[in-house]
């Protein structure tokens, strides 16, 4: 039920005064209501649930989290290399 799919806003329009958008989901196009993200513009990313935008999706935050987790991996590798040096 709470499944949300990330999609990219292609274009925005109004239907009976309600804010709507055409959204691209990795090649599949669908319309969705964007009434609660009124500042959304083409090119922005959002999360859609039941034909309704929940919030904008921040590319910057997405990259920052990935960077932190990648650094965690780099540190692990560094530790492993140190151990190898010590034992070798």
């Amino acid at each position, binding site marked *: *039920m*709470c*499944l*949300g799919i*990330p999609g*990219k806003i292609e274009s925005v329009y109004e239907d*009976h*005064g*309600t804010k709507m958008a055409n959204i*691209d989901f*990795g*090649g599949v196009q669908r319309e*969705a*209501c964007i*009434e*609660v*993200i*009124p500042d959304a513009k083409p090119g922005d990313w959002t*999360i859609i*649930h*039941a*034909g*309704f935008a*929940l*919030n904008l*999706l*921040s*590319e910057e*935050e*997405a*990259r*920052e*989290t*990935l960077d932190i*987790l*990648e650094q*965690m*991996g780099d540190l*692990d590798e560094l530790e492993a290399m140190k151990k190898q040096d010590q034992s070798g």
Partner: protein
Amino acid sequence: MANQIPDFLSGYRNAKLVKTVLAEMHQTVTQPWTLMEICGGQTHAIMQYGLDQLLPDEIELVHGPGCPVCVTSLELIDQALMIAKQPDVIFTSFGDMLRVPGSSEDLFSIRAAGGQVRVVYAPIDAVKIAAQNPDKQVVFFAIGFETTAPANAMAVIQAEKLGLTNFSILPANVLVPPAIEAILSSPQNRIQGFLAAGHVSAIMGYWEYPPLAEKYQTPMAVTGFEPLDLVNGILATVRMLEEGRVAVENAYSRVVTYEGNKIAQQMLAKVFKPVDRNWRGIGTIPLSGYGLQEAYQRFDATQRFDTSGIQTEESEICIAGQVLRGIMKPSQCPAFGTLCTPQTPLGAPMVSSEGACAAYYRYGRKSS
């Protein structure tokens, strides 16, 4: 393909990063911890990616009641069935709800018997059906958590805008924080940390959680749905537990902010008000659901149709209530996979694409 998933999203399915986080978790954990993922969507993702089998043995995941279809009360389902049977009614619902057993039948059987039951993907599609069928009463079964509530509210607002008098909803929304409190305050509770549901928090933010975390000394992490999100949320919670720290952390910051979506929250406050709600298998939780505000009462299907005289009857074998409260695992049910399967479900958790029983069945978790 013309539109590839960008790296800042596909990265959340990166196996190497998932392994990194899992390795960190194995290093961090020193003692057993019991966590609950409240959201059924997360239960399914955990099973689908086999994450439950990659976690350190010390970490037990208990599946929460975050499956709206599963917790919708039998009274509400029987009400829905009663309304759907009436002539000149088009009953609309998310597809998940159609096979959920009521006391004696389900929405599918009503459709098979000639009733007009239609599946909609979006609640506003039900409003479109109402606009196209002025001689019919169109009713939408407004289930879901805070994630779905704004879409349900929007349908009511849209119907009002269009001046429709033939559209109504059967209000059935449920709310997460009161459910968390009901679980944590139970004498049987064994949950030590929570994964707070990411998409509920996209709407509501997570400002409601710190007082709960503090009161019950239970750390929480707002968690997303991709494999990397899930292990990252679990790691955040385990770290807090190991450090003896009680806080609410956000492991889904690309979608969730502390305040949440204020415009959506305003829309909810305009259309809905908190009401006591009976959760199937759990019982009544105070102020844990949404009813319509006075100004929108005319869109309440229970005021438009007479649904009195319902006598509910639950399956005697089904242990859905204990599964939903995290007391029993689906595979501990005597009917699991034999009398009860997705084709012939005894309880809602075997029906829903988010139900814990369906997840165990589909991904082959035969034993606990």
